[in-house]
C-alpha cells in the first residue's frame, strides 16, 4: 500500500512542520506584529486638550512631521522618556516637527501633575483621550508607544517602549529625509495602571 505509506509520511512531515512553526512563533510577542497602520493615513486627533482648555484643532498638524506619544502617570518607562520627549519637541520645533503627547487611561489631573513634575515643552501638544478612542484608533497595546507621522499624514514609524533623544532624533531625521523607519522595539510597555 504505497499510498497509505505516503499518506502517513505526509502526515508526519506535516506534524513536524507545524511543530516548527508553532515553536518559532510562540517565542514571539504577539504584540510585536507590525502595526497595520504603518503606511496608512494617521487617525485624526480630534481630542480635547489635557488641561481642559477646549478642543484641539488637528488641522494644525497638516504638512508637518508629527510624533504621537501615548503616556500615563502610572507608566514607569514613560518617566524615563518624558525628559527626552520634551527636549526633542524643543529641538525640532524650528523644523516643522510637532510632538503630541496623549494621556492614556489616566486622570487628567494625574497626567498634568506628571508633566508639571518632570517637565513639558511649550512646543508640544498635550491631549486627553477620555474614552480611549485615539488609543484604539492607533492600535495601542501598552504604553509607552510612539508613532511617527510623515508630512503627508502617513504613519511611517512606531516605537514600542521608552524612547530616548537619540532614537527620537534619528527617527525624525529619517522621516524628514523621506524614509520610512518602520517599527522598532525599545523596551517594556505597560497595558494599564497596576500592571
Amino acid at each position, binding site marked *: 500500500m504505497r499510498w497509505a505509506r505516503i499518506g502517513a509520511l*505526509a502526515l508526519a512531515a506535516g506534524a513536524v512542520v507545524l511543530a516548527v512553526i508553532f515553536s518559532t512563533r510562540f517565542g514571539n510577542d504577539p504584540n510585536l506584529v507590525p502595526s497595520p497602520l504603518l503606511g496608512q493615513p494617521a487617525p485624526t486627533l480630534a481630542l480635547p486638550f489635557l488641561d481642559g482648555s477646549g478642543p484641539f484643532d488637528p488641522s494644525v498638524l497638516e504638512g508637518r512631521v508629527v510624533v504621537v506619544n501615548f503616556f500615563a502617570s502610572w507608566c514607569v518607562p514613560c518617566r524615563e522618556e518624558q525628559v527626552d520627549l520634551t527636549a526633542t519637541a524643543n529641538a525640532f520645533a524650528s523644523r516643522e516637527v510637532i510632538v503630541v503627547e496623549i494621556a492614556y487611561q489616566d486622570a487628567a489631573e494625574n497626567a498634568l501633575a506628571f508633566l508639571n513634575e518632570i517637565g513639558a515643552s511649550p512646543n508640544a501638544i498635550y491631549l486627553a483621550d477620555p474614552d480611549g478612542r485615539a488609543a484604539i484608533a492607533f*492600535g495601542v497595546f501598552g504604553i509607552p508607544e510612539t508613532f511617527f507621522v510623515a508630512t503627508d499624514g502617513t504613519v511611517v514609524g512606531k516605537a*514600542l517602549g521608552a524612547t530616548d533623544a537619540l532614537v527620537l532624533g534619528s527617527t525624525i531625521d529619517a522621516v524628514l529625509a523621506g524614509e520610512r523607519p518602520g517599527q522598532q522595539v525599545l523596551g517594556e510597555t*505597560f497595558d494599564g495602571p497596576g500592571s
Partner: protein
Amino acid sequence: MPSPSRRTGSWLALALLAVAVAMVVVTAPPPAEDRAQAIGSQVRCPVCQGEAIVDSPSETARNMMDLVRARIDEGLTDQQIIDELLTSYGGSLLLNPPARGATLWLWLAPLVALGVGTAMVARRFHVAPADHLPAAAAPPVSGTLSRRWIWGAAVLVLGGAVAVATVGQFQQARPEDQSLSGVAGEDFDPDSVSNETLEAVVAANADNPAINGMRLALANRYFEEGNYQQAFGHYEIVLDNQPAPNEAANAFTRLGWMVFDGNGEADLGIELIDRGLELVPNDAFAIYLKGRIIWCGQGDADTAADLFSSVLSSTGLDAEIQDRVETDLAAAAAGEDCQ
C-alpha cells in the same frame, strides 16, 4: 351581551394583533446590545490573554465595547465595525482567524487530515479478497497488514521524535529588555525598578486606587528592610484609598506587626492583624505574625504554638516562612521564651 359575530370579530382582531406582534419580534433586527455582545465576543482584548473584549474587565476592552456600541448607534454594519478595529490592530485581533487568505489553511488542515485518515482506514478494510488472486500469488494477508501498520507506526514515532527534538532548537527566549507588557506583563520584574522611581510613580498617583498594588509592593519592600517609618505611611494611604480586600489585609497584617515590633503595642497589633484576617481568613503569614505577637508580646507560648501548627498545616507555604514557623513552633511548644 355581545352578539356572536361581534365576539368572533374581537377574537379575530386579537389573533391578528398577536400575529403582528410575532412578526415584529421575529423579523426585527437583533437589539443593539445583542449585536454589540456578538461583535465583542469575536474581538480579542489586545491587553489580555485570549479573552474577548466582551468578557474582559480591562479599561481597554471597556473602551472598545463602548466604541462598538457607539458605531452601532451610528448605523454601521457589524463588518464595518470589526473592520475599523482591524485597521488599527490587525487580523490578530480576531479570536477566530478568517477562513481566507493566509489563515485559510488553519481551517482546511483538520479537514485534509481527516480526509487522509479516512482514506487510509478505507484502504485498510478494502484489501482485495485473497480468493480473487491466483492461489500461488496470494500473500498472507495478515502478514502484509501488520507490516504496514508497523511501518506506519514507525513513521509516526520517528516523525514525533524529530518534532520533539526540533522544537527545543527553535524555541526562543524573549529578548531581555525587549519584552512588551500586555501579554508580557508578567515578565516585568518590579525588582528592577528602584525605590525612588516607585516613590515618584505612586506620588504622581496619590489618590488613584489602581496604583495600590504598586504602593503595597513598595511598602512591603520597606517592611522587609525593617524601614517601618517609610512602610507605615504607604500602608495608611492604601487603607484610605478604596483598597481591595486582599490589599487591605496585606496592609493591616504588616501594620499590626509594626506597631508591636516597633512600638511594643501587642494588643493593638493583634487587633490590626485580626482585621486583616477578617478580610482574608487563613492567611498563613498573618496567623504566623499574630502567633509571634501572642508569644513575644503576651508571653502565651501555648496559644502561639497552636497558631504555628495551624500555619504549618496550610498548603503552599513559602519555604523560608516554613523554616521560621517550624523553629518557632519547636521553641514555643517547649515553653521557651521567644527569640
